[in-house]
């Protein structure tokens, strides 16, 4: 029997969709709800947005999050690009080890890395805080960035740099005008991805923040411990919109940039890595 035609299939799918989307819709609706206890619709207001905007904790949290996200994305890109440059010339054995380390960072639970880093930093007396969080985020963000950058690198003709040198470009100019430029679409996508991952991270941040300011997701977590106010809904919707925008940019950019080189001919996000 065709599984798609099964009488349970359609209602079940609908149920799953509702399960996924209803909470988000409730959050969105309630962020404009005047009723504080959110038991019913009390009328439209933007009061919660203004409240959230003027909340000092939220503002500091957002600032902290942005600093961490930008710093860890830049660091991740640096690790990913230098790694990919090495990877292209590495022996198959060395490549396998490197790839294994990348997959390990993606597969292992975040909490394992967070705990390990926590103990490491204590042991070497590296003070917890912003820098620690940035390093923590870079550990796993760089793995995703590396996958994307390597996929593009694998599609680049190794003769490109020789061609640039042949046409008079010094090694540095060849790197900038050819290798880096040809990798740029992948770098932008990897950067946007790393940014969003870092932006909504809780686990690593909680473990490594020490006594410093909490990033936004941790601030929100703290707020709902006491009571749930519509203000959280407002923050939630804003974060949601922001993340969706950044991710859409990444997808759109990947789709367009895909048409530039041989790597792009393979097309979809699914087969970015071979």
């Amino acid at each position, binding site marked *: 029997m065709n599984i798609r035609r099964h009488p349970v299939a359609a209602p079940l799918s609908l149920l799953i969709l509702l399960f996924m989307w209803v909470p988000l819709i409730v959050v969105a609706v309630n962020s404009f709800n005047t009723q504080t206890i959110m038991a019913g619709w009390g009328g439209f207001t933007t009061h919660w947005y203004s409240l959230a905007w003027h909340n000092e904790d939220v503002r500091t949290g957002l600032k902290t999050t942005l600093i961490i996200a930008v710093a860890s994305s830049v660091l991740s890109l640096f690790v990913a690009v230098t790694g990919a440059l090495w990877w292209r010339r590495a022996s198959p054995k060395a490549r396998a080890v490197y790839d294994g380390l990348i997959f390990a960072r993606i597969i292992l639970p975040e909490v394992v890395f967070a705990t390990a880093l926590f103990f490491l930093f204590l042991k070497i007396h590296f003070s917890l805080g912003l820098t620690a969080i940035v390093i923590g985020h870079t550990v796993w963000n760089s793995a995703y960035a590396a996958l994307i950058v390597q996929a593009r690198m694998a599609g680049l003709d190794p003769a490109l740099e*020789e061609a*640039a040198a042949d046409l008079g*470009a010094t090694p540095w100019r060849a790197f900038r005008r050819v290798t880096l430029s*040809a990798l740029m679409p992948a770098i932008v996508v990897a950067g946007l991805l790393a940014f969003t991952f870092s932006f909504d991270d809780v686990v690593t941040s909680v473990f490594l923040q020490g006594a410093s300011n909490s990033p936004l997701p941790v601030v929100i977590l703290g707020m709902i411990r006491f009571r749930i106010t519509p203000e959280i809904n407002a923050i939630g919707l804003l974060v949601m919109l922001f993340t969706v925008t950044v991710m859409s940019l990444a997808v759109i950019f990947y789709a367009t940039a895909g048409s530039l080189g041989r790597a792009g001919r393979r097309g979809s996000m699914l087969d970015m890595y071979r």
Partner: protein
Amino acid sequence: MTATTTTTTPAVDLAGVEKQFGDLVAVRHLDLQIQPGEFFSIIGPSGCGKTTTLRMVAGFEDPTAGRVSVSGKDMTGVRPYRRPVNTVFQSYALFPHLDVYENVAFGLREARVGKAEVRVRVAEAISLVQLEGRESSRPRKLSGGQQQRVALARALVNRPDVLLLDEPLGALDLKLRTEMQTQLKDLQRSVGVTFCYVTHDQGEAFSMSDRVAVMNLGLLEQVGTPEDVYHRPASLFVADFVGKANRFRGRVTDGSSGVYTVDIDGIGSRRVPGPDGIPSGAEVVVVVRPENLRATPAESRNGLTATVIDAAFLGAVRTIRLQAAPLGELTSAAGGAGAAPAPGSTVSLTWDENHAWLIQAGD
């Protein structure tokens, strides 16, 4: 002071050039001069060292020993981006993120040529390879032949002393390849740049080149015009590599000044031209090209006869496979217009005295 010096500086001068990769000797003691304005080809099977030689001229590999000079200037230690040569790569290596115009302009921008001149020269180069109108296309949007022409324009726009071409037609289908051969030759004639062309396809090299170098296992086997190499091969390897060859073993009984009397096994005494300096008594191989081996139905006086195995009609020519009892399989070729000899029939074989060539048998 003598004003009558006619020696021109070679465009490329390889003097005792060797290249080793670890234990592997890719090129052995290579001496080779390419003259300015020449269409020069290096041919040989894969792994013969031809591409390595080209890469040493381009500067991508450093010779282990010997010296590479371009236009009289020693290139030892000169990085690729400082050499007056440009390369057309086998994979074209067009920059995927740049359009046709920017690909072609790449070298000029690196050389900091003024904006106005860049515009003029790029337009010139693009029209030279007939790609007007495609300036803003990305390489991916072009056909193989068009990409090939972008690669040519991108190299030629820099007005190199020597243009190096590494199997540039290898990725194209047969029809396009033949078309491009004609275009390449025309292009070379009109720009007058020295071309150094590497290919494994002897037909391709013959159709375009002024001179051809044949390499095998890192050794230079012969340098000469396509006619020299084809009709007067220096070794059995060359004889076989550049075309089909019928071989007859024999011994020199007498001879000097390039014509020898050879006692050919199973045939008898014949006069055969060959290189100078083969001593009497030397073991030799007489090479006769299929088109010079005439098969006629009648018995002839020299007594070499063979049985027809089969005939293959190729349009312009017909090749006939023959079995000559003590000599083994032979091939004869004739114009495709005549009637095919029947398989199993007996033919007599003859060749003109000056349509054979002598090669001293090695060991």
